[in-house]
């Protein structure tokens, strides 16, 4: 048993930490988020050069062959820097779906383009009505000779504005909420009938709604089997939840450190406010929330690395705790910063907003708790 990173993983983590240190002060981050693409393409090339874009791909495809631990090491440090470059959307979601697609032709074409930094990807899974139900899919895909024709609308597509290629979930059979009957298609965002509406979210990400007006896709652009896309989505979403949780853990650590430092310098009643027991105990609560979140993250990472039977239960538990403890830490960080915590100028509020978006993504704490209950308490 050990909870240490390997030498290679430590180097990877350090290289991300160094990048954040050197290239990602808060003003640069603000400028990157506000730019046309929603991130800085120069940084993306740096990611490619440093090999980060190759992490989850097989060595056969020129990848690094990394697992959940490698992804965690990277995401934790990205969290500390509030990095907006779409590592999750392009590499972990789009790339993760390709990895599980069993479609060698698509893998051969696109994985190397992800790794060299020339392709931006996205995963369009959400629809207006679906809230957190991945299987709630109304978008229709109708067979027409060697093609499918897609009609419907996808919402809040992460990196949807910058993506060249998007994987879309669409219904080829079954009822609106059935898991069976969902098929995954890889489409080109320049294809006829694709209509994008970009907009920004509170955490600075540039996303898009994507309307599909009879978009034609060749049948060889199906990921996995027709009608059987759901298990692929579900597995990739599990991996991404672990990655986002690692990002959240980095954010929680950053907020805890920042808050402690601030209370040591802020003077009121003639003393540093860190000397007040009422505030000390709140900071201990923040510390405990962060440590517990770290532990359950390690637990989920170990379960993923070993392919444990109860992986789904571990992931649901992780997402519950990341949501709840993230909220506790975020709210307390603002409270202990007093009026300054409310200013847009200070980075604290921006870290908190990112935690809030992570809580919502792929099901908030309440939703994930219901899922946990079903897995744990249904005979």
């Amino acid at each position: 048993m050990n909870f240490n990173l390997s030498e290679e993983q430590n180097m990877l983590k350090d290289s991300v930490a160094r990048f954040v240190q050197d290239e990602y002060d808060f003003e640069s981050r603000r400028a990157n988020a506000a730019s046309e693409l929603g991130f800085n393409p120069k940084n993306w090339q740096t990611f490619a050069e440093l090999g980060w874009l190759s992490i989850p791909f097989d060595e056969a495809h020129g990848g690094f062959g990394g697992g959940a631990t490698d992804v965690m090491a990277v995401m934790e440090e990205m969290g500390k820097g509030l990095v907006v470059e779409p590592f999750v959307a392009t590499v972990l979601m789009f790339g993760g779906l390709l990895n599980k697609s069993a479609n060698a032709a698509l893998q051969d074409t696109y994985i190397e383009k992800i790794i060299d930094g020339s392709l931006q990807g996205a995963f369009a899974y959400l629809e207006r009505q679906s809230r957190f139900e991945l299987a709630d899919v109304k978008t229709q895909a109708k067979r027409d000779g060697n093609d499918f024709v897609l009609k419907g609308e996808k919402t809040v597509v992460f990196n949807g504005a910058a993506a060249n290629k998007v994987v879309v979930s669409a219904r080829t059979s079954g009822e609106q909420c059935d898991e069976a009957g969902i098929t995954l298609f890889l489409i080109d965002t320049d294809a006829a009938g694709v209509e994008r509406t970009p907009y920004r979210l509170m955490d600075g990400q540039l996303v898009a709604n994507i309307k599909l007006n009879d978009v034609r896709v060749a049948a060889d652009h199906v990921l996995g089997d027709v009608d059987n896309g759901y298990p692929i989505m579900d597995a990739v979403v599990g991996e991404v939840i672990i990655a986002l949780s690692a990002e959240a853990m980095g954010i929680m650590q950053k907020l805890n450190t920042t808050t402690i430092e601030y209370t040591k310098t802020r003077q009121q009643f003639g003393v540093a406010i860190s000397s007040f027991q009422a505030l000390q105990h709140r900071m201990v609560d923040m510390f405990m929330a962060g440590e517990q979140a770290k532990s359950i993250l390690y637990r989920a990472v170990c379960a993923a690395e070993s392919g444990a039977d109860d992986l789904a239960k571990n992931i649901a538990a992780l997402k519950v705790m990341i949501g709840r403890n993230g909220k506790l830490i975020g709210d307390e960080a603002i409270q202990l910063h007093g009026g300054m915590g409310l200013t847009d100028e200070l980075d604290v509020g921006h870290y908190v907003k990112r935690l809030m978006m992570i809580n919502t993504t792929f099901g908030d704490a309440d939703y994930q708790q219901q899922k946990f209950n079903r897995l744990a308490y249904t005979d």
Partner: protein
Amino acid sequence: MDITFSAEELAFRDQVRTFLSENWTEDLASRIRGEDQEFKAAQIEWQNKLNDKGWLAPGWPVEHGGVNWSVTENFIFETERSLAGAPDVVPFGLKMVAPVIYGFGSEEQKKRFLPRILKSQDWWCQGYSEPGAGSDLAALKTKAELDGDDYIVNGAKVWTTYAQYADWIFCLVRTDASGKRQDGITFLLIDMNSPGITVNKISSIDDHHSLNEVVFDNVRVPVANRIGEQDKGWTYAKALLAHERTSIAAVADSKRRLRDLRKLLSDEISGGRPLLEDTQFQNRLSNTEIELMALEYTELRVLASTADGKGPGVESSLLKIKGTEIQQAIQQMYMDLAGYYSGIIHGEENAETIGHAFGHDARKAYMYGRAATIYGGSNEVQKNITAKYVLGL
């Protein structure tokens, strides 16, 4: 990051399971739940079975009877023990005074006391808290004055668990009141049969006799029973506290309690449906289970860092706080599950003929469970420790 068990570790787990199935019997389990002498005899019988196997004091140095288990082996043993429903050892001798003796005691003290602790021939209790010294332990006033080759001890210790069974008590006493409070404290081992010792029972809200007051009236204690140097007792005692807090977390026991609770909830019918289907109850269960899943890994992280020679650090306060909060949440759920029957007082009627037999035990655990957030340094004191030593506030 690796949590998978090796083939050797899996074989060890099988060995532990075999031992438990052969030695932790229904009969023993029922006697250990009994009162007074029946409990004491059964607890000693169980500890002797463990000792015969060589597993009673795994954490001790090998030359004194320890087994040098890895963190993983320790984890496996604790998990299997508690899943089988077998109790932990009584900690006062094996886990509390023994490390002080082999850590700071003389060769003669090691030879005299350690073998008797291993054979459960001496029952120990802990003399730390006093009427005027609880969370503020260094305020203790029980006095020891040198008189020839003896100390003369006067004062009182309180909340002394199982003093009524004890042959020996380890005490922190004041030998110097002139300087810094922590500097004038001495660690003494005192024979409970010494003239001048009175044990007064304290009735507690759980209807079980575990707490006592121990009064010392001119009790003579040979200087040979002093650990280390005079006035240095605080240092010896402090080395232990982190360990005590770690074991109070009782993660493995809480796992078993939750597993058993889940079963009881699926048997309990409310409005025609199993109570386990009640969404309110499900949420309470999962709130606790998720915290416990995390705490299990927090404990493993602390243990792994200890094995790397880094701890058990001050993070043990976190284990104590979260572990006891989880215990109390579980106790509350047992109470609410028992409903009316949580009011049953065992012994007045046959609980089985009235309603749930577990009602009495649920209440006992709940009422005594209030102590967990108080003893071992109250949870508020743990927060002070964490604020100071971990967060640097």
